[in-house]
């Protein structure tokens, strides 16, 4: 297939380019970038007023298959990702069974391949059965195709196991993604600990539940000269710890999610279970710190933590409701509205965090638009208004606290391997 993209604003972090140009794509590859290109193409896309960025990469999502197909399947998850502008996604291993051996890795890859469309890379478990005790067959999973390891949702509470995981994974250049949460400090908490939890009578999850483990993992990475990637940070304290660690050249990278810079714990008022997420939505002070951390480079990546749930998991008592937000289909608009329009990030910085950095961390060949590269592109209209309507989501998970929100930024085209999805 031949595609000619005309007059778009191309923003590329790696080549440090931001300008109006044409792009010609043939056989899945970028053939030429330049002004006033003329080709006979199967498809000509007029991108006047639109932004073209390297395909968005989500390094943290949940596809629920195998085991929880009533919440999401690999196929519906892929469709949702494509609708959200993502060309590559990495899915977390807390399925049933969990992704802790090469057979399940192969199963996910096969399923994703037959669904086609976006690139799917599985993330393997750190420990067998996500039990936090014995290391999983990490090397064999790497051969089968995992791009990282993580016990997401079930933090590795034993620091010695975490230390060994970091040392072992380093041999195979696999990033270890740490879901930082001290379960003892969380206790029975269900939302951020603060004034809102006090007046709702809900048990709080204190910030230190996240921060003590961020600190622990930073120290483990530092003392053992290993890389750790901190998942979904939500607090000012976590940003401070990571900023400090980076000053000491600790090999730490970090991600946050759109909801942590778009919303506070006040969204829970009325016992809104769609605003129940882990880590929990925090306060405006944390939101500002997260934005600052994004702007100054402390936070490398924006990931969705797409966590689809069935209505039956959410339309219950707040304590009984599942944690998680369906995130693929609002991510871009939340970034445009809360980071780009407000000038928290430049467009180039945004491209780094949504495409280049996650590609680099996962060691995958994406994250930039240049001649000869595979044509993975996201094209969006930065000024178009959208009104979020969860019922129109491609995802099975309609669980979003942003339903009804008016946002700026609309995904127009998702192009993977030179194919328009």
């Amino acid at each position, binding site marked *: 297939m031949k595609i000619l993209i005309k007059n778009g604003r191309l923003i590329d972090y790696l080549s440090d380019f931001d300008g109006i140009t044409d792009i010609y794509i043939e056989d899945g590859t970028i053939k030429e970038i330049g002004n006033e290109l003329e080709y006979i193409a199967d498809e000509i896309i007029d991108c006047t007023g639109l932004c073209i960025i390297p395909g968005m990469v989500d390094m943290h999502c949940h596809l629920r298959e195998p085991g929880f197909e009533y919440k999401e399947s690999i196929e519906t998850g892929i469709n949702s990702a494509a609708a959200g502008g993502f060309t590559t996604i990495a899915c977390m291993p807390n399925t049933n069974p969990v992704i802790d051996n090469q057979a399940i890795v192969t199963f996910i890859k096969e399923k994703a391949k037959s669904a086609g469309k976006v690139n799917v890379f599985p993330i393997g478990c750190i420990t067998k059965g996500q039990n936090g005790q014995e290391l999983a067959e990490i090397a064999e999973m790497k051969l089968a195709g995992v791009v990282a390891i993580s016990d997401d949702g079930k933090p590795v509470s034993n620091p010695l196991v975490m230390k060994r995981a970091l040392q072992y994974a380093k041999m195979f250049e696999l990033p270890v993604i740490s879901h930082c949460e001290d379960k003892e400090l969380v206790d029975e908490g269900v939302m951020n*600990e*603060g*004034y809102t*939890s*006090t*007046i*709702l*009578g*809900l*048990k*709080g999850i204190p910030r230190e539940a996240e921060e003590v483990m961020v600190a622990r993992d930073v120290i483990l990475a530092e003392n053992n000269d290993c890389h750790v990637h901190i998942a979904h940070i939500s607090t000012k304290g976590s940003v401070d710890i990571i900023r400090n660690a980076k000053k000491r050249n600790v090999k730490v990278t970090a991600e946050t999610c759109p909801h942590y810079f778009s919303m506070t714990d006040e969204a829970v008022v*009325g*016992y809104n279970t769609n605003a129940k997420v882990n880590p929990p939505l925090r306060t405006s002070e944390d939101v500002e710190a997260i934005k600052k951390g994004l702007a100054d480079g402390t936070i490398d990546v924006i990931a969705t933590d797409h966590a689809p749930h069935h209505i*039956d998991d959410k*339309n*219950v*008592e*707040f*304590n*009984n409701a599942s944690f998680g937000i369906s995130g693929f289909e609002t991510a871009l608009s939340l970034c445009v509205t809360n980071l780009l329009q407000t000038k928290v990030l430049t467009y180039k910085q945004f491209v780094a965090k949504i495409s280049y950095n996650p590609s680099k961390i996962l060691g995958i060949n994406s994250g930039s638009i240049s001649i000869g590269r595979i044509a993975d592109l996201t094209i969006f209209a930065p000024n178009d208004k959208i009104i979020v309507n969860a019922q129109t989501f491609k995802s099975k998970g309609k669980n979003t606290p942003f339903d009804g929100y008016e946002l700026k930024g609309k995904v127009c085209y998702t192009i993977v391997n030179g194919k328009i999805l």
Partner: protein
Amino acid sequence: MNLTSKDILGIKDMTKDEIEHILSTAQTMKYIITTNNKKTPHLSGKSIVALFYENSTRTRLSFELASKYMGANFASIAASSSSVAKGETLIDTGKTIQAMGTDVIIMRHPMSGAAELLAKNLNISIINAGDGMNEHPTQALLDMYTIKEKKGKIEGLKVAIVGDIYHSRVARSNIWGLKKLGAEVNVAGPSTLIPTEIEKMGVKVFNCVHEAIIDADVVIALRIQLERQKKGLFPTTREYSKFFGIDDEKLKLAKSDVLLMHPGPVNRGIELSSYAIDGKNSVINEQVTNGLAVRMALLYILTRRNKEFENID
């Protein structure tokens, strides 16, 4: 006057006028309790169901007698013996009860927000008889009624709430209500049992009970659940009682005509000394009587409201 909501979920969302309307209606109801013929037609033909997911003696009995004194049909379900034990969801259970012609569901539930969830999913009235750590509005209303009856007013009074504030729905409902009616509210307890940023509710926080109750017009002691000790929130009941329990000695710091209140059931010798419970300042038994009056008032107000709004649903 009508309430704006079809439900009584909490004091937080009530206006001062609504609270005062309920309290003045309760005054009429209290008269009925004191007569020889405790039967009125106010709720004749109405059906009231109590749905209790937690144990309760006084609240459930109080609602049952309130319903029966006013001629309603009353039934009650304990979660342990119902289809809840078979895994039915709260909303499904509520819809089943609604489908049987019930006018009001009175629910107690261990989880905060459960009453609101039920209310949003049903057309009939819900009275929250306690949801988790959130609210226990009828308790606060009966406490306010008692204070008003004894002191003639609430505005300007100094009220100290002492004990496990963190887990207490009684404390939260009372703080909302008392602040709306113009009282000054102190809370006191061990720092492990004071919720984060509670001062933003307009209360003063003390760890020293003595300081909190100086010149108080009212002292409300809260029940301390003994399992909190096992969770490590305080070392022993002995130490708790010594530092945070109310006895005659501490009570002397308050005004001489201070009202001593407790939502019950009391752990004698832990949060309150026996002398204090049975002493001249204690109004604990009158609170129970007033609870009945307040619940009669609420049932009356809500079922009247339903009638006027019948055509809408």
